[in-house]
């Protein structure tokens, strides 16, 4: 009986040892498949003829064309205007809400900010479009900013709120005790101490706004194009080679921003 047990244990062990590599291989494969499209895209953006899948040679041509394309630069300008405006609006409104609303019932209304996260983005886009149409608000940069700020708030308010709750409230009391008014306390004490959270939230909204397609597609109207919108229309009308370069660039910039965000978060947690 004992011998039998020992033998079966041995075979089971070697069986398991082979089996043990199955999971890591599987996961590795998934990661590979996940990244393969992106890697191929990046590689092909340097292809002399990116419309074909054959490799024709290395070139920077498409990138050069990028920077001279008026359309693209215009779309970039729009994306940046909308993104930075949304960041500013989101951060300001969120800060005021979190700090000045702490003593009123507004505090308990936190839930309403999760609405934009729960609903599918297309519903949000369509709702906004309906309202704009009904009130005859011309579609353009303003409506874009409105929409982006809306989705941005859902990210920013929870981040700043939780950071505020973690802060030692005694610091606010100490400031007032030493003679500062509410506003002075807000600007001199609260904002500096919350600055890591503020920067994280700002970066997040920046990324979300720059990447956003759906809200932009519905709320930008006929005359305004953002970068993702431009890419979309180009893809649908049969991609030009420049789109590959643009996509790659967008990829790199977004990744860079995320890297900063992550590094920043890791750093500030050490303190």
């Amino acid at each position: 009986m004992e011998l039998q047990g020992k033998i079966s244990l041995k075979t089971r062990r070697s069986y398991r040892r082979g089996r043990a590599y199955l999971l890591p291989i599987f996961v590795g494969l998934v990661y590979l498949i996940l990244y393969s499209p992106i890697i191929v895209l990046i590689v092909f953006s340097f292809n002399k003829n990116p419309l074909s899948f054959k490799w024709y040679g290395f070139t920077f041509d498409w990138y050069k064309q990028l920077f001279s394309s008026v359309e693209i630069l215009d779309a970039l300008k729009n994306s940046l205007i909308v993104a930075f405006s949304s960041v500013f609006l989101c951060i300001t409104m969120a800060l005021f809400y979190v700090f000045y609303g702490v003593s009123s019932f507004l505090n308990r209304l936190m839930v309403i900010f999760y609405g934009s996260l729960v609903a599918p983005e297309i519903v949000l886009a369509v709702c906004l479009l309906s309202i704009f149409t009904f009130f005859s608000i011309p579609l353009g940069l303003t409506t874009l900013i409105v929409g982006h700020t809306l989705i941005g708030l859902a990210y920013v308010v929870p981040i700043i709120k939780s950071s505020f709750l973690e802060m030692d409230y005694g610091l606010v009391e100490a400031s007032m005790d030493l003679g500062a008014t509410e506003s002075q306390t807000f600007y001199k004490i609260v904002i500096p101490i919350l600055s890591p959270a503020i920067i994280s939230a700002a970066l997040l909204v920046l990324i979300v706004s720059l990447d956003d397609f759906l809200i932009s597609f519905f709320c930008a109207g006929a005359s305004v194009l953002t970068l993702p919108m431009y890419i979309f229309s180009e893809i649908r009308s049969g991609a030009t080679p420049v789109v590959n370069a643009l996509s790659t660039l967008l990829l790199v910039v977004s990744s860079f921003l995320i890297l900063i965000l992550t590094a920043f978060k890791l750093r500030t947690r050490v303190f």
Partner: protein
Amino acid sequence: MREIKLKNIKKIFNGEIVLDGLNLTIPKGEFFALLGPSGSGKTTLLRLIAGFEKADAGSIFLGNQDITSLPINERRVNTVFQNYALFPHFNVFDNVAYSLKIKKVKKDIIEQKVINVLKKVHLERHIYKEIHQLSGGQQQRVALARAVINEPDVLLLDEPLAALDLKLREKMLVELIDLQEVLKTTFVYVTHDQFEALTVADRMAIMNSEGEIEQVGTPKEIYEFPQSSFVARFVGSTNLIKGVLRSEDNKSSIEIPDLGSFEAMLPKKREWACNGCSVLMSVRPEKIEISKKKLEGFSNCLEGTVDSIVYHGRSTQYHVALKNGSMIHVFEQNEEHFPQEVIDYDDNVFMYWQKENVVLLEK
């Protein structure tokens, strides 16, 4: 410098009445201690004075000024927080200069004042250090400097030494006393540690767990003449024995069942002290002389058996069991290396005290 008057203060937290009809006057220029157990409402009282809490009823006066509804930043009252609440993003200088910057004082005056006040707390060599570079004791002193630079009418200290170790605490207590004497600001010091309170206070108030003020007086008054058993037990320790007061002519005595009659002196406030009333006799353990021999010259004597002996180095504490089963504890200072009399377990001993050292309490 103005005195603080609290009139009929009522404060409710979550439906619980923490303070009810509280009255207190804190004279100006004193080092005043608020002593009480945790949950007695002493911190609440402090926060009411500072303005962090609003009273549900009653009023607070600073001199002639009604500050009950005055916002925090307009009161000439400053607080030293228990956890210091130093601004982490400012260095020592900026922390201390904060209140002056708010008032838009001129730069050179600020610099002068900051250096001055930091000298007073012995931190002049750490002016530009970051907060996290300082030790606990140093941080505490920055918090002090920051609160004091304003020359407030009142400085509130909420258990400021709680986070420090024993040796540091003792050192800081002395520094605080010195500082108060130099500044002559009214210090209101909240603590649950009677040793701290007795050490620093010119006068103190004892609060009980129901948020009531039991007694106000100098440390000596409170220690030697407690007005309730709570105070007698909370500040120091005491022996409390229940008995019946017998008062004829000028002589008073306490009758204790099984133990006999003991001489006493009538308390200052005599309204409640009637013949035949039930009273508590309070005798502090250090006021009792313990001996195996019969001694002369004491007004009172009790006999008992030594139950336990605890050696404290400077003193020895004896627990003595009486005939009726209750315990008396006695402190004897160890005055000699080789005491003339050695008291051991189960020894039959006599305990003596003078009638002047007895305090009679109603409850």
